[in-house]
């Protein structure tokens, strides 16, 4: 009964669509991973790292678009359904912007006005549990240290 209420507007052939979307998702993931590997060679906290992270987020959104649009079929639904789902989700644009901005502002305020917070966050870490890699205070040391450490397999 419920089935008969639905009008079949068009019957698109999605034989190639599934294959193409799979290829797109795979390609996007591979690019993301390549960027992830490239980022390891960059200087921590540099502008290049930030740009790469931004690119990865854009690729992530592209993947989300393909999954929702094609796998979840939303792109082929009628406009009413698309709107009732995507318009409320548009709130995320505001949520993400506002909260991240707020977090960043909180960090800056504390760094400026709370010496204890600032100094505490610069204390070199000493703790080293089994398996966890030690990291020097300077990033370059870590890069070199990593190679000759050549830890055995961490299996317990």
């Amino acid at each position, binding site marked *: 009964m*419920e*089935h008969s*209420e*639905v*009008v079949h*507007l*068009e*019957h698109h052939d999605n034989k190639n669509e*599934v294959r193409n979307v*799979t290829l797109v*998702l*795979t390609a996007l*993931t591979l690019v*993301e*991973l390549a960027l*992830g*590997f490239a980022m390891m060679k960059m200087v*921590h906290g540099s502008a290049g790292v930030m740009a790469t*992270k931004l690119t990865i*987020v854009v690729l*992530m959104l592209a*993947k*989300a678009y393909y*999954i*929702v649009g094609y*796998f*979840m079929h939303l792109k082929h639904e*009628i406009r*009413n*359904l698309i709107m*009732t789902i995507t318009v409320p989700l548009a709130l995320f644009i505001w*949520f*993400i912007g506002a*909260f*991240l901005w707020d*977090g*960043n502002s*909180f*960090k800056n305020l*504390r*760094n400026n006005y709370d010496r204890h917070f*600032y100094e505490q*966050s610069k*204390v*070199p*870490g*000493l703790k*080293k*549990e*089994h*398996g*966890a*890699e030690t*990291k020097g205070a300077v*990033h370059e040391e870590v890069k070199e240290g990593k190679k000759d450490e*050549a*830890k055995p*397999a*961490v*299996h317990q």
Partner: protein
Amino acid sequence: MSTATTAQPKWWNGGKSPFNVEYGKLMMWYFLMSDAFTFGAFLISYGTIRFSTNGWPDPNVVFQSFPGLGSGLPLMFVSLMTFILIVSSVTMVLAVKAGHEMNKQKVVINLIWTIIGGAAFLGCQAWEWTHLHHEGAWWGANPFLNADGSQSSTNFTNYFFTITGFHGFHVFSGVIINIIMLIMTLNDTFEKRGHYLMIEKAGLYWHFVDLVWVFVFTCFYLI
């Protein structure tokens, strides 16, 4: 094709769904939207805390082990997990498609592949959690230092285990739902009903789980 789009139906005149989907599917969409807000709240909270902290652990140092291959392999294991989930999403699409064609045999095969993919993903996650737990990481315990070498807080592990745990629970529910779909298919429930629309709803849920992983994967492992 030929019978399509004669005149645009008047969607809001009553007598039919203004969204042109059956009730259950619309409700699944609304559920997933609310679930997206739950996951979104988790991830935004994680982002806010991360933005308000001076140091944060480097994911390439934390997640760098592969079962049987040891450590020093950042991104490798999580890539495997990501591909497992993408492939299981594809097999789910194929199961839904087979349902449209009323092809029971194909529905069964693709559902089984989807269930195997989901179970494999859960197995990977179980291994990773166990491994991290052995390294001393858990809720309230963080053995990893920040990327700049400073002492880190437990925020990192708390968020990691909470969010991947919540996602893992969704995967687990998805596998259970898919197993129920498989049993119903094998019992000819959908054949008797005349349509496989229920598998579409299970499929929506399963794709959503894959979708959330895209975000979790990016937020925790890549950036």
